[in-house]
């Protein structure tokens, strides 16, 4: 493994040390551009998030289920662009690291180096691009590295052992372990595939392994935390926003998840 496999940026260090301290990590997702999204980042930090994922809406989000698809459509209809979001981020004075999640065309449209530079300028410390799999990640990884952005890679239940090792080694900030073969969405129980993948990944890396995709209830979060270093929670929170709940109320749902994790 090259030097790139051992260094990491602010996100990497922040999550790594918290996980090392035994804390179950909680990373909620915010769709930028929805009403109150900026306040929600603050609420999440206050409610115990270890980092916040900022979704930049894209017209064709192939890893997202109906809830986040609808959120993206609404955000786009409201005029949200990568530029408007990145311009607002510094003003949030977020208390936790921010991780941008978006699709490759949004990144490549500006060019990966320019995009990563813009992320850094906006105070973002990590980037997740779900439609850039490991085999396509070299260019983007280089651009992230050049700007000190942690490039978070995804692993899936279908990922074969060899590549799982590479993903585990190369991912920065955390390894995004797909709990299920599927898209983002709200699922009742932690899928059976999750534990096995998390265990495999943890055996391969010291980088925190977070389970995401479909984790929505305190129960499933607790189950996930038992096998991984934490969880990413998206659709359950976004659905609240779509249904008109304000930042404080959505923040309370996150707090409940925090409690569940801490009790685990």
């Amino acid at each position, binding site marked *: 493994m090259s030097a790139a496999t051992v260094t990491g940026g602010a996100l990497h260090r922040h999550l790594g040390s918290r996980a090392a301290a035994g804390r179950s990590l909680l990373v909620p997702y915010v769709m930028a551009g929805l009403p109150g999204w900026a306040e929600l980042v603050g609420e999440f930090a206050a409610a115990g998030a270890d980092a916040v994922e900022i979704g930049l809406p894209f017209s064709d989000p192939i890893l997202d289920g109906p809830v986040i698809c609808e959120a993206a459509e609404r955000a786009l209809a409201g005029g949200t662009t990568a530029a408007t979001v990145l311009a607002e981020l510094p003003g949030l004075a977020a208390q936790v690291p921010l991780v941008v999640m978006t699709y*490759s065309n949004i990144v490549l449209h500006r060019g990966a180096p320019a995009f990563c530079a813009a992320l850094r300028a906006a105070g973002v410390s990590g980037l997740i691009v779900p439609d850039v799999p490991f085999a396509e990640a070299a260019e983007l990884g280089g651009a992230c590295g050049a700007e000190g952005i942690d490039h978070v890679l995804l692993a899936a239940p279908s990922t074969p052992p060899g590549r799982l090792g590479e993903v585990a080694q190369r991912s920065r900030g955390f390894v995004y372990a*797909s709990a299920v073969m599927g898209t983002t969405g709200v699922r009742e129980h932690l899928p059976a595939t999750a534990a096995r993948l998390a265990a495999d990944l943890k055996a391969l890396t010291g980088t925190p392994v977070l389970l995401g995709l479909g984790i929505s209830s305190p129960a499933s979060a607790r189950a996930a935390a038992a096998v991984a270093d934490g969880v990413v929670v998206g659709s359950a929170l976004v659905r609240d926003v779509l249904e008109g709940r304000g930042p404080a109320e959505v923040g309370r749902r996150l707090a409940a998840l925090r409690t569940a994790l801490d009790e685990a």
Partner: protein
Amino acid sequence: MATVPALLTPTGSAPAALATDGRFGDYGGRFVPEALVPACEEVERAFTDAWADPRFRRDLDRLLAVHAGRPTALTPAWRLSAELGVTVLLKREDLAHTGSHKINNVLGQALLARRMGRGRLLAETGAGQHGVATATAAALLGLRATVYMGERDIERQALNVYRMEVLGAEVVPVRTGSRTLKDATSEALRAWVSCADEAHYCLGSVMGPHPYPTMVREFQRVIGDEARAQCARELPTAVPDHVVACVGGGSNAAGTFAGFLGTGARLVGVEAAGGAAITHGRPGTLHGFRSYVLQDEHGQVGEAHSVAAGLDYPGVGPEHAHLADTGRVHYTTVGDDEVLAAVHRLARTEGIICALESAHAVAWVLRAATSGELPRGCTVLVTLSGRGDKDIATLMAARDGAGDVR
């Protein structure tokens, strides 16, 4: 032609292993969630293996012949040629079973799916032609089929929806985004993530993640290979001076061009003015591949608008992007009015009502023969990718909406 070696497999040669990394210059690739990468790799392995297997080739050739009606005819357009002063030959994919070239690809993929032990096909469809073809191939091979289709397209294409249902396919309405082909493709990819172990994604054009652009081109090259051999019999020069095809995703064009890349023929791809990814798009990624994509200044993918539903796609196959960059193929556009006029002109001179998609290629020939871009006496091969039965309601609406169309 050294830049596109994979296209040069000579007609009728023993199947050669396809060595490709799925890149066409800067384009192509496999921009899908990590979860789908193994599924793509499995398709790649299976296809490479099958394509080198004479038994698979034989099975497919037989299906194409006895079920889909191949070879399709090459029709000299006598009266149009006389009017234009240019020899026009029509490659008649409109005569293929289900009414378009789409059947060539789906029979190949359905056979492959069976070989891979998959019991189900997933597909996206816009106007419904690829959906009908997929439902057909599934019925023929005893597979189930699930076809994703935008809710707006379902409303506009009720007859094709019902054709799919009669063939036993399940048509799933897609309610995201613009509720058209683009969104149906996204939804099919999403669905594939959760059932890749039992279902094969039967993509409808030379797009999507590797190996689809290569595989679909190979399944469609039968158009170009046949046409090449037929031109050799029909033309004193053996090879036509110009080879023209319409470009939506680009599969009928890729299949046609595959037969002529190694010749001196000038190749012309005709996009819809309102869906011209090569002419008006910028490099981007969509649906798993990098190519020219219609998009706004923020990188959001645009909606295409064409009177031909099958060209309503904001991207284009990556190989076309590369062929455009290298200059081997000339890409151009025609507008809806020219297209409607071309349908009527061909109908009245040759007795063929072609699909609105195919009429883009015809429209370019009409324009180029008039402008002198096609010199008098030259020979032009035009691929008629499909028949116009599906478009009659659109033609009627165009007539009623604009009296001058005819």
